[in-house]
């Protein structure tokens, strides 16, 4: 795909050093703020037992469907109100951050490693492996993610391992493509030819020469994929086939609140806002990263 030359290309050449990149990133105030918010979510998740005013699954029968504190019927005991079983919404949201972040990181790591490894192999060695992988990728892409996830989860029942598998099943393809594409380009590059000429082994070329160069776009992709995974997990939990119900999860909470949208609207609204905020900040931070590390990918 040809592309006109813009100032981005100038940026690439001047900011190619790590200190340069860091300075550039920190200059983007929005991205920094977003990054801090994400760190904030992580902190909240880690410190959940200390931060949450109540236990997340504890039912308060005297306060069923209590509105948030700014209503006259609300109380500072339950700042964001309670759900249909009398469970404190704020506490459940705090604990919900844990599972979203945990699953997001786990799935992204798995897809990153698998996709990159396969992509590097396909891009460097080509041949039958590349051809077979190409067919496989085409088939997987034509497969609607939700159907596969539904089928797995409907079969195994509520099960975190199966959930990770369902979420990861299509995700590795993006990493595969980026890795493969970059390796394809890199293997013709001068520095690789030079290394080969000097007698370097294949693994040396792959890991020491090529790999460091493909890391930046992979990091960007990983961050942006994290956002997608968080939403995907929330969607599955919303449909009732994601996180088991004993673990508080934002998607499940929105589903719980669905019956009450005509009255106790807060039960479905606030958990969704949490998802929105976290994903938004992950996206903002990822875009900031991308501007710095890999302006070629800019949309």
């Amino acid at each position, binding site marked *: 795909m040809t592309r006109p030359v813009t100032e981005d290309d100038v940026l690439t050449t001047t900011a190619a050093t790590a200190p340069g990149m860091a300075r550039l990133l920190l200059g983007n105030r929005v991205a920094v703020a977003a990054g801090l918010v994400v760190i904030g979510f992580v902190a909240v998740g880690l410190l959940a037992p200390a931060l949450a005013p109540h236990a997340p*699954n*504890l*039912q308060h*029968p005297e306060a*069923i469907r209590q509105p948030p504190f700014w209503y006259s019927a609300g109380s500072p005991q339950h700042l964001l109100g309670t759900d*249909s*079983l009398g469970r404190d919404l704020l506490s459940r949201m705090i604990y919900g951050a844990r599972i979203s972040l945990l699953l997001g990181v786990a799935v992204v790591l798995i897809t990153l490693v698998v996709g990159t490894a396969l992509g590097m192999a396909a891009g460097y060695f080509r041949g039958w492996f590349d051809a077979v992988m190409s067919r496989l990728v085409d088939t997987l892409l034509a497969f609607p993610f939700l159907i596969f996830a539904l089928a797995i989860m*409907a079969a195994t*029942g*509520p099960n975190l391992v199966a959930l990770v598998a369902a979420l990861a099943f299509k995700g590795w393809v993006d990493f595969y493509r980026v890795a493969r594409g970059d390796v394809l380009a890199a293997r013709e590059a001068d520095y690789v030819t030079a290394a080969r000429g000097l007698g370097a082994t294949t693994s040396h070329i792959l890991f020491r020469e090529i790999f460091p160069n493909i890391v930046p776009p992979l990091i960007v992709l990983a961050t942006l994929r994290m956002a997608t995974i968080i939403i995907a997990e929330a969607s599955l939990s919303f449909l*009732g086939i994601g996180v*088991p*119900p*004993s673990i508080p999860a934002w998607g499940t909470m929105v589903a719980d609140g*669905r*019956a*009450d*949208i*005509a*009255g106790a609207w807060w039960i479905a609204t606030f958990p969704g806002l949490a998802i929105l905020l976290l994903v938004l900040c992950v996206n903002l931070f990822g875009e900031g990263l991308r501007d710095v590390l890999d302006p070629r990918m800019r949309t």
Partner: protein
Amino acid sequence: MKRQQSPPHRSGLTRREFLQEGARALAVAGLGSGVLSTLVSGCGRPPAARQGLRPELVRGALPVGLDADVQTLDPAMHRSRTVEAVVRNICDGLVARDAEMRYVPQLAESWEVEGDTRWVFTLRKGVTFHDGSPFTADDVKFTLDRIIGAIPDLQPSPRKDLLGPVSGAEVIDEHTVAITTEGPYPILHKKLVFQEVCPKRYFEEVGPDEFARNPIGTGPFRLVAWVPGERIVMERYEDYYGGSPDIPPVGPAPLAGVIFRPLEEAATRLVSLEAQEIDVMVNVPPDQAERVEGLPSAHLSVAQGTRTHFLGLNCARKPFSDPRLREALRCAIDPRPIIEQFLLGRAQALPGILVPMAFGYDDSLPPPKQDLPRAKALLKEAGYPDGLDVTLDCEATDKRIAEAIAGVMAQAGVRAEVRVWKKDNLLNQLRRRERDLFLTSWGNSSLDPSGILPVLFRSDGYSNFFGYADPEVDRLLAEADGAMDPDVRAHKYIQVQRALHRDIPTCFHFAQQELYGVSDRIQSFQARPDGMLPMHDVSLTTAS
């Protein structure tokens, strides 16, 4: 996506390549066009409608909001209460029930039992199907043959076991038919309530697929259109014979028509009732009952339900093979506070599986009572001084109750983790006795213990989730099945209930009320324990 600068191609293909590519192209074309034609054929095919361009709009049709969708309109090919409620308006049966669950003859005028196994039914005369053809004994025989599987090449009916051990039907004359059973079967007439009569000639003419989309019957309403997922429209059948003489009104239906709309989400149904888009709302969730009562244009109609919810215990393996633990569980929870809080009192706590309206109900059983000290003592005695960790499995709709129960059990030291399953998945696992503690329910629409006790508690019961096996109970159930004298049957069932109360394969029983939201412009709509919706009996207030 391949797009490169490529060298000029060779001008043609070799013959081999041509054949290969041709073959592949044909295969793709076939598969692809099969898929696409399916999609495209949806456009341009009208919904199931009667012949001719009759407009679907039926003036004055009453909209009813159902809580589930219908998958078929064939009375013999489903196990869905919703389908039965809808189809019962199109097709009548030999026997019916009134709002108090009393059995009344409908298409059958009367019947007699000869010996133990032969029932002779005298059929009503002058009854016609919606296409004008007369209703005769041939149609009854055809209906029953289809259900018991006596007609080859037809899909087996999932309602066969509902009918019971019927071996065949014999046409005696145009309005008399004899039904034979495999052994003494005291409740045949009760079970006929669940089967509706299909027209033999029409069915043979149009075939099973078309019949499922476009059935006709002898009922008070005739199907006008079925748009799956959206609506089922029916209009009054003017030549209706009148229905059972024991259920007023007798004659053609007062309503000009009915439109059933599947609205699976309770919130949606409620909003539709409020906006007066529907006049009847099926299944009001207990926590919305007050809201319906507060509506200016609608009211609540209540009936005691026939479905018992219960906590089941697996008696065949640890931990609950130990009867002390089962009793500990029973002492740990009293259903009534939970019913008050989470079902807002819209359910009835029961000492056992049967509901009070059921035949042979034992009202001497003590009501449940919470006794936490005893529960803890029993746990300790059984070897669990620090409490017990278990999993409580349930289906998605029962999640809240399950979590509430888990909360209460924790007070006695039983720490339950709630696990939610899709209903069918859960039932399959329960049948394989893979679960130890579970919350589920079983319907007893016939209100006869033979419909619930054997299947759950006989040692070879198909749905014996508990691994319960007591030879005495087996014997009593078998004897009850064959006893033609109602008093003898009742006595045996009472003994079974006492045995179950002693052995505790289940605890925490309750039956929810059936709640309907009804618009004030309707008079004479009555909620029914069996969940049926006989719209023939519904009329509007004169002001409407």
